[in-house]
């Protein structure tokens, strides 16, 4: 199997995890599994940018690639399914990242769902504008989802922009935004666009045309989209049209369904024991949910559960401990329980 970029990404994760999680946590991370454990790990080990950046990666492929990495002596097991990079592996990782850096704009955690929706909407919008420009009404839409079609109709009717202006504005905004990409060729995105008499390329075709591997192409493509979304978020006045396209597209807070229910009860002021009783769940499960909420909602205040003083102690311990394993932190601050440490770490991960 020749997927050297994906191997680099896996080695990058292994390096960040420092042997504290199994190889399968990488699978869950790249697949974007919405479990408390995966979400917490992503934050704890600063791997949030990679969240759901290889949604189709299978267990089998991951295992196979891990084996290849081990066979190259770049990685070694320290425990059942726990690995660390060898010195040679670290050099190899550094070398590969120099050659194919992980796009710095990639931000899977924040943008994975908005990104998908944005792409569906903008490709359809561009196709429609292009055909309008050439007065052609007979063509097959390249997006089939009904809700995307509904959105488009609504957008053209209510956006407040004149139809003949939308194309010009979009050209200006996209051009301005894409030219600020430093490490990614804007073609990764534009090659895929469809319009009058010109059908866009598939991901495979685009990667071939650009002469990069499919895996690397995939990350650059996501990187380009996330770059646009971040630009719009930072400076919506600069990109009024794109801003409109993403408005209402998925909120930043994405909780598992069960955590959402807990969150609703939390907001009603109930305490954890009550919630556990009402929901007939173990208290530890409710605590998992609270941590998930803390990870997701920047405005969520944890002082209700951990005093400011304790927070400081835990933060201090985390910076002095030689790993981010909860057990080690707890040894330094024995008066805290795991729930408190996890909550503080959730906030810490977010700040980084």
């Amino acid at each position: 199997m020749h997927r050297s970029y994906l191997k680099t990404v896996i080695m990058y994760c292994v390096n960040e995890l420092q042997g504290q999680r199994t190889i399968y946590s990488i699978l869950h991370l790249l697949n974007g599994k919405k479990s408390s454990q995966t979400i917490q790990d992503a934050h704890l080990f600063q791997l949030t940018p990679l969240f759901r950046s290889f949604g189709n990666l299978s267990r089998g492929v991951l295992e196979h690639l891990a084996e290849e990495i081990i066979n190259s002596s770049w990685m070694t097991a320290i425990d059942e399914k726990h690995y660390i990079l060898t010195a040679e592996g670290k050099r190899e990782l550094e070398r590969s990242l120099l050659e194919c850096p992980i796009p710095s704009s990639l931000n899977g955690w924040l943008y994975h769902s908005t990104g998908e929706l944005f792409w569906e909407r903008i490709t359809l919008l561009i196709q429609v504008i292009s055909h309008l420009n050439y007065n052609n009404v007979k063509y097959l839409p390249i997006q089939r989802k009904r809700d995307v079609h509904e959105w488009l109709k609504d957008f053209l009717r209510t956006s407040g922009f004149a139809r003949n202006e939308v194309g010009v504005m979009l050209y200006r905004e996209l051009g301005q935004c894409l030219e600020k990409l430093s490490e990614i060729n804007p073609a990764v995105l534009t090659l895929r666009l469809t319009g009058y008499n010109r059908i866009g390329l598939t991901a495979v075709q685009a990667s071939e045309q650009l002469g990069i591997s499919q895996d690397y192409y995939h990350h650059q493509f996501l990187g380009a989209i996330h770059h646009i979304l971040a630009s719009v978020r930072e400076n919506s006045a600069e990109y009024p049209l794109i801003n409109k396209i993403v408005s209402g597209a998925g909120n930043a807070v994405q909780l598992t369904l069960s955590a959402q229910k807990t969150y609703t009860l939390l907001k009603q002021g109930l305490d954890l024991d009550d919630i556990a009783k009402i929901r007939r769940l173990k208290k530890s499960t409710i605590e998992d949910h609270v941590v998930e909420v803390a990870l997701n909602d920047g405005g969520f205040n944890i002082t209700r559960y951990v005093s400011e003083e304790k927070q400081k102690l835990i933060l201090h311990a985390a910076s002095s401990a030689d790993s981010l394993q909860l057990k080690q932190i707890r040894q330094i601050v024995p008066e805290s329980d795991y729930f408190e440490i996890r909550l503080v770490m959730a906030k810490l991960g977010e700040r980084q």
Partner: protein
Amino acid sequence: MTLEALLQSKFGYPAFRPGQKEIIESVLAGRNTVAMLPTGTGKSLCYQLPGYMIEGQVIIISPLLSLMQDQAEQLMMNGEKKVIAFNSFLTRSEKRQALINLNQYKFIFISPEMLYYESVLSQLKKLRIALFVVDEAHCISQWGYDFRPDYLKLGEVRQKIGNPVTLALTATATREVKADIKKSLGILDCSEFIYSVDRPNIALTVEMTDNFRVKTERLVELAESLEGPGIIYFSSKKMAEQSADLLREKGAKRVMAYHGGMDQESRILVQQQFIHGQLDLICATSAFGMGINKDNIRYVIHFHMPLQIESYLQEIGRAGRDGKQSIAIMLYAPGDEQLPIQIAENEFPDKSQIDWISDWMEENPNSILNVGAYEEQIKQRSGLTDIQWRIFNDFFERKIKSGMGYKRILQEMNGYCEDRIKLKRNSIEEVYKWIHKKNCRRENILSCFDEEKNSSVQFCCDRCGLQFENFIRNTKSDNQDRTLYDWRNHLEYLLIPGE
């Protein structure tokens, strides 16, 4: 307005193709009609155009979701807004919404399994149905190569909604199948319009090769030399993919694979690239081609043996819709018949699987009245594939509703599966014989449909003698786009109005 004027104004065609006008007139006169038109000659127009001349709804029963989706989209592309494809693609709330507003649509596509729902049926009863169309009507017949048990219900449905004027459409139906269609729909008194399955502008050849390797080499040679655009059909996704890679390695730039395992966006793009001439060749599984309107396809190659003559005709029928000379080539290597046999057998649950399910049901009696809820469990333990599960589930649900006990159902299912496999084996046998027969290939195919060969076909088949040069590309086409790609230019082209 005359039919011709309507044809021009609504669809932009200057004239009817053979058969279309007669069928449309029959339907407009209120006669039940069975029409057999060869693939690629515009069957859907036969219900689309009448739709604009009569008041009330046109209901179209269509067996394949992808085909239904394509046909609905074609209509919408033509500017028709009152179209709905009522199938399992819709979410529950979309279905509910659509049901309430059913009378606001003109063209209503429905998949047959939806007709099981009383709520759907009762809404249909309220409509004023101008025309009831059964597309791919051969699916009604047990003798047909593509029998769909859901289709058996259509006669009853038709009666329940007040015996509307009915149009049964198919591309290929033998005598038995035709009789089944009429009987099953209860339209014995119908008008019949049967047009030859023959497509004289498609030359037919079979090439014998010694083994797989030689066959692959020959495929590369053909793809390099034939005048395109073309389609190569494979029975497996993997082979389609690998062959497209191989051809690209050999320097053919504009080749792509197409199969059901690709994501939807890629499938749409590849299909559209082919239609717009950005690709010359598609390496496809049978998932490709349905509902594709591209009239200048010059060749269709079969790398694997098809499972029956009917589907072979459907697939090669995608060539030469513009009436120009085209060619169909089947590549054969000894032992090739094993793959279709295997495919046919794998479609059905086998005896050991059914026995296992029987034991399992004995231990889990709760599952019997609600097998659908145990899909994952049953599939996982018994090893049923998706297709096998569908057949199992369809059969089981149908019988359990009629009050039959599960043991008896499973027993009958064994027999049913055996019969179906036997029928499929016979079809494969027929293809095998066709490949090996020494006389005219066209004559042979036509005789399967009780037809005789039209006296003179210029480029008939390899048995009648065929000059291959006529199908060779005369210019070494250099269609590589050498202009450097500029993303800004592309964006400008897409978004800024020209003059």
